[in-house]
């Protein structure tokens, strides 16, 4: 890392990325419901209107499919829209345009038209968001060839990935976990990109944990305690779900022989299902034990924090998954698990940070 520590949040990093990219490329414009409002999409679009004016920062009518089509049409003509949805759930109304046109224009035109479009969508969590404001539907988008799916984690990554996404030239679904917005870290000023690939964030020999989005942080906490239990976990941040590059995952599982997946979406038909299937289909012999998938249970997100408490997966679940697949007797690590649980359960269950006061 270059210059001295400059610590900002992922939300601030995303805003900075947008400014940097817009300064460099006048074809980029931002459009979304709320991009110019006082809340500024959780601070991620703060100041853009002042900096670039209403022609490049467009407050969008509440018409997701129509405006997605408009963004795609303009992208086919060479513009570079950055569309923002406060929730993934709202973008559901635009799946027709995303799946039928954004994902297919390049293919169906045999390479003549591309769609340089980035769609930022935020996955809600906590504060009673409930069934239709907290869906983590990345595997839905990741099931469509022609779309790219990116999930940022750290502030450094988020800024560089968003700039890279805006330069990529393909339709990119950029799914930000609402709680990832609060993650802070060192971020250089100015321009840089982070390549759109997964990355190894921790080296280990006993188990490979492939994590997405907010679950990366749960996995990292789990790994510290697994180390105390003499289980050395390797962690891969699966920042790009499509196109899915299995090479680093295969390399890691061939080394560790064990796989745990931890993602923010549903366990059934989620990203973990695809990862386990790919590993098994490619090289069954590299697996020393059945993999374990950590994901959301098969019911919608309940609103009440008393109901949601068992819904989200945490570092404790990742710890248990690793212990299971490593064939370690649970009672031998019970006290370590106890300390992890104490630490993890001390964190608030329905807000990203104790300072969060709602409402969205």
């Amino acid at each position: 890392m270059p210059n001295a520590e400059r610590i900002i949040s992922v939300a601030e990093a995303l805003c900075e990325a947008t400014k940097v990219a817009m300064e460099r490329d006048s074809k980029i414009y931002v459009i979304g419901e709320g991009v110019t409002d006082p809340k500024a999409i959780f601070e991620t679009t703060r100041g853009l209107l002042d900096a670039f004016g209403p022609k490049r920062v467009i407050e969008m009518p509440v018409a997701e499919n129509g405006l997605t089509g408009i963004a795609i049409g303009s992208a086919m003509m060479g513009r570079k829209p950055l569309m923002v949805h406060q929730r993934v759930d709202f973008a559901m109304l635009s799946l027709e345009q995303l799946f039928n046109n954004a994902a297919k224009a390049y293919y169906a035109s045999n390479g003549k038209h591309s769609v340089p479009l980035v769609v930022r969508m935020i996955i809600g969590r906590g504060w009673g968001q409930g069934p239709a404001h907290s869906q983590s539907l990345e595997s839905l988008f990741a099931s469509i060839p022609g779309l790219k799916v990116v999930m940022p984690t750290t502030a450094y990554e988020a800024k560089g990935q968003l700039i890279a996404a805006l330069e990529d030239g393909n339709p990119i679904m950029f799914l930000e976990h609402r709680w990832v917005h609060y993650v802070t870290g060192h971020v250089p000023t100015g321009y840089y990109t982070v390549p759109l690939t997964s990355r190894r964030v921790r080296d280990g020999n006993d188990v490979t944990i492939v994590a997405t989005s907010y679950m990366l942080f749960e996995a990292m906490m789990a790994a510290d305690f697994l180390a105390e239990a003499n289980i050395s976990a390797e962690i891969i941040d699966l920042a790009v779900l499509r196109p899915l590059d299995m090479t680093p995952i295969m390399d890691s599982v061939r080394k560790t022989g064990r796989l745990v997946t931890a993602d923010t979406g549903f366990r059934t038909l989620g990203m973990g299902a695809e990862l386990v299937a790919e590993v098994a289909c490619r090289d069954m012999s590299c697996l020393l034990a059945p993999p374990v998938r950590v994901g959301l249970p098969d019911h919608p997100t309940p609103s009440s924090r008393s109901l949601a408490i068992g819904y989200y997966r945490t570092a404790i679940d990742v710890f248990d998954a690793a212990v299971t697949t490593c064939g370690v007797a649970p009672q031998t690590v019970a006290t370590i698990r106890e300390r992890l649980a104490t630490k993890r359960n001390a964190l608030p269950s329905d807000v990203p940070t104790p300072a969060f006061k709602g409402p969205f």
Partner: protein
Amino acid sequence: MSETMAPSFLVNDQLALFRSMLRIRLVEEAIATRYAEQEMRCPVHLSIGQEAVATGVCLALRPQDQIVSTHRSHAHYLAKGGDLNAMLAEIYGKETGCCGGRGGSMHLFDAAAGILASLPIVGSAIGIATGAALAFQQEGSDCVAVTFPGDASVEEGIFHESLNFAALMSLPVVYVIENNLYACFTGLEQRQPHRPLGDLALAHGLTAVTADGNDVEAIHAAAKDAIAKARDGGGPSVLVFNTYRWREHCGPNYDNNVGYRSEEEFQQWKARCPVESLQKKLMAEGQLSDQDLAAMTAEIEAEVTAAFQAAKAAPFPLAASAEERVYA
């Protein structure tokens, strides 16, 4: 872009309009005739009977102006100057097709001719065309985007979402509602309340111009006005043209026998054939002789025959190439 779009003998607008309609008719009938050979193995939505709308509008456009068509794309594509060889090859699934065999009849496009895309999801094109207009506005270009919503597509939310935004932003886009009275087998009166289609524009602060969709000159005049207005920064327009699809919704046959519409209704519309109407008028005015017509027809038929031959002779794309060009 087709080189035969505007042959030198075309001295005026009327003859150009006539030739364009005749050419669409002859291409479509050739497709209908040859469809039974089972070599054009993709759905075809023919525009026979509706040639006036595509022609009247597209001949008012410049090559750089963009159109976005629908599943019923042939007439729009041809009228705007799309390459006939690339169109037929696409329908035959050949490498030389405009999409390299990846799209078929419902995805025709020709970048050089200003045909941005054809999109087979009802209403889907409306957003894309509006977005092209947004790009023109952002770039300070004086180009215009045009799309052809069918009477059913105004039932989709995206029609209203797009008109709302186009009106708000004063975008250079023209929505040409091509009302052929049916969505597949379902009549307009079964799907929409009894109100003029043009009134939909009022909801978005626009006014619509409605004209006879089989009168190519009326269409051309209305389109010229709307396009000039858009080009001059006057914002979007809605045009409504009532016309009639002669053959089945999808495929080469007539289907007046299946029960959703009557033979009498079809005959009434056929008597008002857009191609024949203008032909009669031009002949009465002495602008077109029998010999002219024969020469024009022969020239187009030769072009069409050659295009079919080329399409049939062209190679298929390699199967392995199906996985290519998913990402830019």
